């Protein structure tokens, strides 16, 4: 397979996953602002959404003041924001268009339909009343992307690069979401917390589709260290860092066979760090430090993958 094609498959999957993640990020902030609280806390929810999306500077240049409607628009539909849902869907489709020879017709048609539907929407879809439906649509289309890929693509190299892109993007988002809330997850805040923190953790879990899972696994009230444990180390939670790396290392094994490229070594190191660590150790070494290190290492896997396979000059 051409190196460029591998690169485009990887990015197409990343962008598709990013649309869903971005919908989740905005949804969290949106829900936060709906719980009873003061203006300052409400504002900080929007700011942290911008932070997770890496869109603070861009937003400030364009809008300045923090305002819910503007933030939602900037993160969801603004074509000028390279991290918006709109831009990510467009980028998914641009890659798909360039990849027509390498993906199935079904895949192209589903991605193309997503783009055409999005283009037919106007700003009304993110008015407070309809917002949730829009986020659900974004998530549905991302689910469809994965389903169509799974159901129609050959289980070959091409699929491997897509899977890798997807898991790297997903792990990145989970880590960022967690990091944006790390201060409420610190054990110290557990005592002083109270009901506000309960909502914060609850929203975090919901944004990762893990609220029910939490109760199913722990059958107990929500505590900070368990939230962190579930989202970082649990092997069953599909969006946890551990789970992403279980899949990622497996895919790399399929892809690499007996050759052992550098990216596989880096990924393996991160994987064992997740696999054999206890949540206490994570907090001892500092949650924020742990997450920062993870985000860097995860990015490094992607860069090394490009060097190992895509003949990037």
């Amino acid at each position, binding site marked *: 397979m051409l190196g*460029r094609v591998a690169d485009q498959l990887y990015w197409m999957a990343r962008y598709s996953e990013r649309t869903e993640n971005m919908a989740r990020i905005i949804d969290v902030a949106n829900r936060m602002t709906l719980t009873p609280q003061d203006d300052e806390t409400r504002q900080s929810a929007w700011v942290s959404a911008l932070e997770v999306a890496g869109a603070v500077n861009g937003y400030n240049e364009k809008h300045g003041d923090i305002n819910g409607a503007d933030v939602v628009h900037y993160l969801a539909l603004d074509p000028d924001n390279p991290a918006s849902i709109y831009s990510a869907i467009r980028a998914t489709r641009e890659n798909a268009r*360039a990849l*027509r020879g390498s993906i199935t017709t079904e895949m192209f048609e589903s991605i193309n339909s997503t783009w055409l539907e999005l283009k037919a929407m106007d700003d009304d879809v993110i008015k407070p009343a309809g917002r949730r439906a829009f986020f659900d649509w974004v998530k549905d289309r991302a689910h469809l992307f994965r389903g169509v890929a799974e159901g129609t693509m050959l289980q070959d190299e091409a699929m491997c690069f897509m899977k890798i892109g997807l898991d790297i993007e997903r792990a990145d988002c989970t880590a960022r979401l967690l990091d944006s809330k790390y201060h409420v997850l610190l054990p110290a805040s557990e005592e002083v917390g109270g009901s506000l923190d309960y909502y914060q953790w609850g929203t975090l879990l919901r944004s990762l589709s893990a609220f029910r899972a939490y109760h199913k696994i722990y059958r107990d009230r929500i505590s900070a260290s368990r939230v962190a444990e579930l989202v970082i180390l649990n092997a069953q939670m599909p969006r946890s860092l551990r789970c992403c790396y279980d899949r990622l290392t497996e895919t790399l094994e399929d892809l690499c066979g007996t050759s052992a490229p550098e990216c596989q070594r880096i990924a393996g190191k991160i994987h064992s760090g997740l696999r054999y660590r206890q949540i206490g150790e994570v907090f001892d070494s500092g949650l924020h430090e742990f997450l920062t290190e993870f985000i860097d290492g995860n990015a490094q896997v992607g860069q090394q993958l490009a060097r190992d396979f895509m003949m990037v000059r």
Partner: protein
Amino acid sequence: MPDTRFFNEMLADDRSVRDAYGDVAQWLAALPEGQLGLKTEEAELLFRRMGITFLVYGREGSNERLIPFDVIPRVFSASEWDLLSKGSIQRVRALNMFLEDLYHGAEIVRAGKIPAELVFNNDYYQIQMHGLDVPGGVYAHIAGIDLVRVSESDFYVLEDNLRAPSGVSYMLENRAIMMRLFPELFDGNAVAPVDHYPEELLRNLRAVAPRGIGEPTVALLTPGAFNSAYFEHAYLADSMGIELVEAPDLFVRDNKVFMRTTEGPQRVDVIYRRVDDEFIDPLAFRADSMLGVPGLLSVYRSGGVTVANAMGTGVADDKSVYPYVPDIIRFYLDEEPILNNVPTYMLRDPEDLRYTLDNLADLVVKEVHGSGGYGMLVGPASTKKEREEYRARVLENPAGFIAQPTLSLSTCPTYVESGVAPRHVDLRPFVLSGDDVTVVPGGLTRVALTEGSLVVNSSQGGGTKDTWILQE
């Protein structure tokens, strides 16, 4: 009253239906009211969903547009097709021999059949091709012959396309869409299939691989996703199961061409390129080209790779060479041309120039190097002001223009706003050379959707139709 100035392919002058259109006319008559409109919308939706679009460059960046698709098919009988296919094949055979001759001894020039300066001063003559032996003596592996019809039995060749003719994906997709929308039309098995075109193409491309390569690797070289015909490039690569490469995916080493793959470099033996001559190798042609592969020409020249179509084919499909094609056919094949050439006035000739300027209102004037329907004057449809402006342009450089009588292009029933009405059409069959010379029974029919218009180019608002060749 029916308009009898133009040959109507479905209806004879007495309004009776011609044989080939029997099924189509019956089907049209039986369609419930409004059905054509609905199916047209459905077809448009399918095209859009499948992303079968072309890019139009405009002031506000590029835009994806659909080429309008007309759901009423155009039909040829087996005997009509017999004439068209034989004529097209004859033409391509002769033109390939002409190219081989031009880049070797140029016997035809020495025999006085064509002026030397027309060939050797031609912008499309590639000196780098001189003396080079290409596999099988084939230069134009893929050729598109543009044909028009003016009466029951008279067909004319409007032009030959020997560089990188496009449109074949529409021939294939139009058929696929028709079979999806109107399966009942294909019940009788009367329509010759076209979907084996990609297989035929691959067979011919593999046949021209450099000598001694058992299992040649073929790749399709595209300028990239922003090229207007990108859909076609991806479509063909996909249906042949070959890699679709862009210039940065290829590199030259040890006098071979390789593509960068996830498993390292892989050798490429045949390149079906959809990049123009001048962009294909920045070392040999335009140095500022980002679309080319540095060193490709030198590998080609030493026989390490085959490029299809060969470089320098443009000299044979140039409008100034066009008038000589009948003589070219006689010279190399010792046969009479099966298809007519349109009588052509060469404006570098003072007498032809005078005649043309005196009769601008009746003639079609074209730029020698023009294409896509740009920069031409259709006399009968022009205003006085347009003719005056055009006259000034011609006088600046008469040798840059040719003129032809306005042909009465045939019409086909077409679904337009006012209902089903006759519209002018042309036809481009695709001739493949390599292993042998063949043409898949069908082609791209382009239709001028505006009433009375004779310009069928998609860049000028033309549409396409499915083209049927009836089997005997």
